């Protein structure tokens, strides 16, 4: 089934979330009872409040990441048509009803991740190190995996679960600490009556047990779920691309690279296609967010076809349990593996570098000596000296035509060499020495600009 979530996946998510919510509520109740007998209901409220605060903090931080550009600027189609096309192809193959935003992160370590799941806040991010290492088939596999995450709503569920996990850990910490330091209120309550004291002791024991084991259980549940979702995204990638070897080869290259992404933190690491903090692990422990990469590659390589049924078959050969569930497999159409596309690396190192500069608003300023300077957006001076030949180059930003709607756009040439200037829409337009036409059309906003000698 393609446009519906895989049923087994949905079931697992519901179990995970309700299980965690139960642990949180029980912890809250027990905590309340222990600290002040009869205050269990209050404890429930505290647990709920804790969760709400954490959720709110997460949402605001997530929004600020998305809005204030922690990853730089969104990649436009013209910045790099090939990358944009690749994402669009996978969007079509998956039947995703919207186009995610694309971000290119300037980082030599090859990796990729996806955030979101809703039309206006979905992101597919790839590092520049990934782009010049992978060929078209491999990159397609990686992007298909990320789109698979988006379509399966993985990020939504995993962040919900992560917030829950954080609340549980915090609450149990509060309970354990208050037991250590707040013995007084318990003693007072014990002196009230003997029978109550015994019941109190039992509750105390249960609370301590729960405060220690609760976070642990929640964590195990969380990581198990996370690993399953990685497998599922792999299955989706094989299904979308009809070419499991592409993703397998990409995973090999990603784990083979020594560099780790610079901006890795513990919170963002689980989102990557290969967890950069756990990449070296050959066996997946109970606390791994991702299955061992070797196992993922093995499953992808041994697939006999490209459908979910084939992935399930390959999966159960390697592991003992099932993944997708019978109800979703029954309606899955059979799909053959396509032949490999004949294309080398998607982009050369130079192209990747140029794309990164373009995405971050740098202005390419070609010097007559052949060197292309990249001028940062906030550069203040009106001219800049070429670092190779020492020529003083005039900055085109000063000659930006006025942004009056309907007004005729005009650019006056300074000399007969290479020149570049900015259109009112922000696009940089370059004029070659051979250019002789009276006007030029902006490739971005399509407005006509008159060029005067």
């Amino acid at each position, binding site marked *: 089934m*393609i446009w519906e979530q895989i049923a087994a996946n949905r079931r697992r998510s519901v179990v995970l979330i309700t299980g965690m919510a139960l642990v949180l509520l029980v912890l809250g109740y027990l905590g309340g009872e222990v600290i002040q007998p009869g205050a269990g209901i209050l404890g429930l409220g505290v647990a709920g409040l804790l969760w709400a605060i954490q959720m709110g903090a997460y949402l605001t931080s997530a929004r600020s990441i998305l809005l204030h550009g922690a990853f730089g600027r969104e990649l436009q189609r013209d910045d790099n048509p*090939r990358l944009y*096309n690749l994402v669009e192809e996978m969007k079509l*193959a998956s039947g995703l009803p919207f186009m995610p935003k694309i971000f290119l992160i300037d980082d030599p370590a090859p990796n990729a991740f996806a955030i979101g799941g809703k039309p206006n806040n979905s992101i597919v991010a790839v590092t520049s190190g990934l782009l010049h290492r992978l060929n078209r088939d491999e990159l397609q596999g990686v992007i298909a995996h990320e789109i698979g995450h988006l379509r399966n709503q993985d990020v939504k569920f995993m962040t919900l679960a992560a917030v829950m996990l954080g609340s549980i850990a915090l609450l149990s910490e509060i309970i354990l600490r208050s037991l250590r330091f707040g013995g007084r209120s318990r003693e007072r309550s014990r002196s009230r009556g003997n029978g109550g004291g015994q019941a109190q002791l039992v509750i105390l024991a249960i609370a301590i047990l729960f405060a220690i084991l609760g976070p642990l259980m929640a964590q195990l549940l969380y990581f198990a779920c996370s690993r399953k979702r990685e497998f599922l995204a792999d299955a989706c990638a094989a299904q979308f691309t009809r070419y499991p070897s592409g993703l397998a080869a990409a995973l090999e290259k990603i784990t083979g690279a020594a560099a780790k992404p610079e901006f890795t933190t513990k919170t963002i690491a689980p989102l990557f296609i290969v967890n950069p903090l756990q990449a070296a692990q050959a066996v997946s422990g109970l606390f791994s967010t991702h299955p061992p990469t070797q196992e993922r590659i093995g499953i992808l390589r041994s697939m006999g076809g490209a459908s979910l049924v084939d992935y399930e078959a390959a999966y159960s050969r390697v592991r003992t349990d099932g993944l997708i569930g019978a109800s979703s497999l029954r*309606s899955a159409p059979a*799909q053959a593996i*396509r032949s490999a596309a004949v294309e080398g690396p998607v982009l050369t190192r130079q192209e990747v570098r140029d794309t990164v500069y373009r995405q971050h608003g740098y202005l390419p300023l070609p010097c007559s000596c052949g060197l292309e300077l990249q001028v940062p957006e906030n550069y203040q001076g009106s001219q800049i000296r070429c670092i190779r030949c020492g020529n003083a180059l005039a900055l085109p930003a000063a000659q930006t035509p006025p942004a009056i709607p309907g007004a005729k756009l005009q650019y006056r040439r300074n000399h007969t060499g290479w020149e570049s200037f900015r259109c009112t829409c922000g696009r940089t337009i370059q004029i070659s020495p051979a250019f002789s036409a009276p006007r030029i059309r902006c490739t971005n906003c399509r407005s006509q600009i008159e060029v005067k000698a």
Partner: protein
Amino acid sequence: MPGIALILVLVLAVFAVLWIASSYNGLVRLRNALQNAWAQIDVQLKRRHDLVPNLVETVKGYATHERETLEKVTQARNIAVNAKGVAERAEAENILTGTLKSLFAVAEAYPDLKANVNFLNLQEELTSTENKVAFSRQYYNDSVMNYNTRIEVFPTNVVANLFGFTRREFFEVQDPGQREAPKVTF
């Protein structure tokens, strides 16, 4: 006693109506997904039809001896633009794909053409559009498969017959490379 029987019948009737409504809605959802997938193919095919004349113009300036190939591409494009119905369009598009392939093969012999930025951009756009057609078709065919299965199996077929849901055609391709295993020669 008749009261209980009446209630039982009423409850059953309510359940039956609910079931019919939900399976009808499910079928409509599937059909809409299908139509949306078909619209996506349409968009990509139109885009390809728009790109082909540009490509022909660009190639014309460099590869003056390839009139025949260029004419074939233009012809195939015109046929594809005017094709109607799923099966006919699929065939016309296959022919267009074939002629485009031979055009790109011919372009290999003209280094000046291959260095032309305009040509390179067009080549990337056409290759990607080709892929997009293939991926939309793949999604469309999977949707058709799912939809056809749903309207044929019991018990949804009852609802499907009742409201006139009919089978849909697949968008087939006759691409020999996709059926055969790749041959490796040393």
